[in-house]
């Protein structure tokens, strides 16, 4: 898990570094680095949110199987958790729309 975290950190740093260094070349090469970075950002956000949702759902399934009597609390926490995790991907989408258009 720590290797995966390091990999995501390195990739996220790289994805932010590329458009920052390429700002001066937009006019000369015509490459829209902002759009490329936006695509990478959305991909990272979607992927990490999917991982988080999968982890939350797996933990809830395990908890429900261990203790079915605790279903109301687990169900509430899972619904709120999934809704908030989805909203994180939406935040990224909103930022992308604000920056790209």
């Amino acid at each position: 898990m720590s290797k995966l975290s390091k990999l995501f950190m390195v990739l996220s740093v790289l994805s932010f570094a590329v458009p920052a260094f390429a700002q001066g070349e937009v006019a000369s090469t015509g490459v829209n680095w902002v759009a490329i970075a936006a695509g990478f950002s959305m991909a990272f956000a979607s992927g990490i949110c999917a991982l988080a949702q999968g982890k939350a759902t797996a933990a809830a399934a395990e908890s429900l199987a261990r203790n079915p009597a605790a279903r109301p609390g687990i169900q509430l926490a899972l619904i709120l958790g999934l809704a908030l995790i989805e909203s994180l991907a939406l935040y990224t989408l909103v930022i992308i729309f604000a920056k790209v258009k």
Partner: protein
Amino acid sequence: MPDQIHTEPDAAQAATAEHFYSGALGRIGGVMGVLAPLLVAAAWWKFGPRPAIGFAFGCAIAYLNFYWLKRVIAGFADRATGAATSQSGQGIVFRFLLRYVLMALGAYVIFTVSPASLNGLLAGLFLPVAAIGCEAVYELYAALARGV
């Protein structure tokens, strides 16, 4: 004997707390229903009709999304606990994925018909977050003021 004296109020308090927290999802749905018209009216007054219509679409999609999420999780919990359920596994997965298709379709329609409404649509999708925030504040108030 002293143990019984302390245990009975604790059990009653726990039952009250359980009853209070079990109504959280219903309260969140109610807050969404109250917040949406208020915020649509505010958006209409502040930004004009097009963003307000987009915001109303976003609120409707977010409400439907939250409702389907609740149903999907209920079906999932039925499956995990082995309880009898009327929802099939395929139906649960289909509804879970259909939520994303619905959001993308709504955004595409708004974007092609009226790009000016897109910001409103995106803002409307955050209605559940606002409702959950209101519920968190209410639960904090209940915990501090009423000791629930």
